[in-house]
C-alpha cells in the first residue's frame, strides 16, 4: 500500500515547526502505525536525515507514552485505541495521513511529535495519592470494599495518562485525567479521608498548569484508550463543590 505522510517537524521547543511530506510506497496493512513510522525513520536514517522523533514505549497500549494526532484525531480514527494499537489496515491505499503532536499550552512540543506531559505528574503530586507510608499497613481484608465499588474504582484507576483527553478537547481541558484519579481515590475508604483537600489541590494544580475548562462535549471519553467515563468528571465536580462546605 502507498501512503502519503504529512508529519509535523519541529527541531526543538523554541523553533517554529511545519509539516513535511513523505511518501511511503511499501506499507504492509498488518504493520502497526508506529511500525510504519519506524520504516520511515529507517529510510530517513539511511538517507542521513534526522528521523522523526515520536513518543512510544510498550507498544501494547498500557504505558501511555505514545500518542499523536492522526488525521486530526487523537490516536487516530479508531475510538478507544492507543496509537501503538492502531494498524495500517485502518487506512486505504493512497491515503494522505496528517501526523501532528498533541497540542495544548500545558503540553509544549519538545521535538517533532514528542510533547512534554509533565503537567500530569504535577497534578498527581498535588494530591493524587493516599498518604500511606510504607510499613505497618493493616491486614488487607480488615477493610471490606464491595465488589462493585472496587470495580468502579478500577475503572477510574485504569487511566494510562496518555493525554489524548487533553488533545482531543476543544478547550484542552485535563478534567478527565484529574477526575479519574479523584474518583478512584474518593470511592475507596482508604482515600476518602483526604478527599476534600485532594480535590481542592488537584483542581487548583490543574488550573495552574493552564488547562482549559470542561465543556462536557464528551469527546475525551470517545478517544480515551481505557474508556474512562465522563461521569468521573461529574463526580469530581461533586467532590469539588462539596469540599467548599
Amino acid at each position, binding site marked *: 500500500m502507498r501512503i502519503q505522510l504529512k508529519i509535523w517537524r519541529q527541531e526543538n521547543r523554541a523553533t517554529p515547526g511545519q509539516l513535511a511530506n513523505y511518501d511511503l510506497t511499501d506499507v504492509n496493512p498488518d504493520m502497526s502505525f508506529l511500525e510504519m513510522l519506524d520504516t520511515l525513520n529507517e529510510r530517513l536514517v539511511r538517507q542521513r536525515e534526522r528521523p522523526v522523533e515520536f513518543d512510544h514505549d510498550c507498544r501494547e497500549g498500557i504505558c501511555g507514552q505514545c500518542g499523536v494526532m492522526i488525521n*486530526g484525531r487523537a490516536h487516530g480514527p479508531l*475510538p478507544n485505541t492507543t496509537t501503538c494499537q492502531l494498524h495500517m489496515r485502518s487506512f486505504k491505499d493512497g491515503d494522505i495521513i496528517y501526523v501532528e503532536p498533541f*497540542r495544548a499550552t500545558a503540553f509544549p512540543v519538545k521535538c517533532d511529535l514528542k510533547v512534554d506531559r509533565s503537567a500530569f505528574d504535577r497534578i498527581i503530586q498535588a494530591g493524587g495519592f493516599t498518604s500511606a507510608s510504607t510499613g505497618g499497613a493493616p491486614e488487607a481484608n480488615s477493610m471490606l470494599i464491595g465488589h462493585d465499588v472496587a470495580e468502579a474504582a478500577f475503572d477510574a484507576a485504569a487511566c494510562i495518562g496518555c493525554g489524548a483527553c487533553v488533545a482531543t478537547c476543544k478547550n484542552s481541558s485535563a478534567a478527565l485525567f484529574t477526575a479519574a484519579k479523584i474518583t478512584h481515590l474518593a470511592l475507596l475508604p482508604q482515600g476518602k479521608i483526604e478527599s476534600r483537600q485532594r480535590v481542592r489541590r488537584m483542581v487548583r494544580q490543574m488550573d495552574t498548569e493552564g488547562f482549559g475548562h470542561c465543556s462536557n462535549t464528551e*469527546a475525551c471519553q470517545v478517544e480515551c484508550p481505557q474508556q474512562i467515563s465522563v461521569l468521573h468528571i*461529574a463526580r469530581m465536580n461533586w467532590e469539588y463543590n462539596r469540599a467548599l462546605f
Partner: protein
Amino acid sequence: MSNSDRDPETGISLVDGPVENPDVPSTPSKEAKLRRVKRWLSGTLSQKNLMALTGLFLCFFLIIHLAGNLQLLLPTEVAQWQFNFYSKLLSENIFIHIISYVLFASIIAHALYALVITINNRRANGKRYEYDHRGASSKWYSRRMGLLGTVILFFLIIHLRDFWYEVQFGHLPVDKDGQEDLYTLVVTVYRNGWYVLIYVLCMIALGYHLLHGFFSAARTIGIYHPRYVNWIRVIGWVYSIGISAGFALVPIYVHFALT
C-alpha cells in the same frame, strides 16, 4: 494553608498539612473561610458552576415565559384579555420585579463568564492543529455553545428592544379592560414574515443550546450517578424540545392564523 506551604517554583501545595476528615467538620477561621471562597471563585470548576447555575436559572425562567406565550394560542378574544392580564399580574408583582433583576444579572453573568471562559480556553489551546478532525468524536452543538449563545444574545437584544423596551419606555395602547395592550403589540410584530423566520431560527439555536446546556449544567454541579444521569438526559430532551418548539409555535401560529 498559607503560601509558605507551597513549592515556590511549581505552586504545588506541600502535602504534610493537616488532614481534614469529611465526616468531622473542622471549624476553619473566618479568614481561612474567606480565602477558600475567594479561591473557589477563581477556579475553572467554579466558573463553570456559575455558568451552570445562571444557566439553570434562565432555564427555569423560560418555563414561566413560555407559560405566558402559550396564552397567545387561545382564541383571539380570550387571548387578548388573558395575555394582557398575565402581563399586568407579573409587572405589578414585587417578587417578579426582584426576580427580573436576578434575571438580568444572570444573563449578563452568563454571557460575561462565557466570554472569560472562552478566552481562557483559547489560551489553553495553544497552537492549532493543521488538520483538525476532532469534531468526529463529539456532537457539533456541544462544541458550538459559544456560537449558539451569541445567536441567542443577538435575538435577545432584538427581543428586548421590541417588547421589553416598548413596555418599559414606550406608550402602549390599552385594551377594553384598561390593561396595557401588549397583545396587540406582539401580534403586530408577528405579522412580519421575516421576523417570524428569524425568531424560529433563533429558537432552533436556543433548542440546541438548551439541549447541551441543561445536560452540561447537571454534570457541572456534580450529578454523577448513572441513574440520575439518564433521567437528566430524558428531562433535558423533553425540556429543550418543549421550550424551543413551544416558543417557535407561537409566532408561526399567530402569523398564519391571524393574517
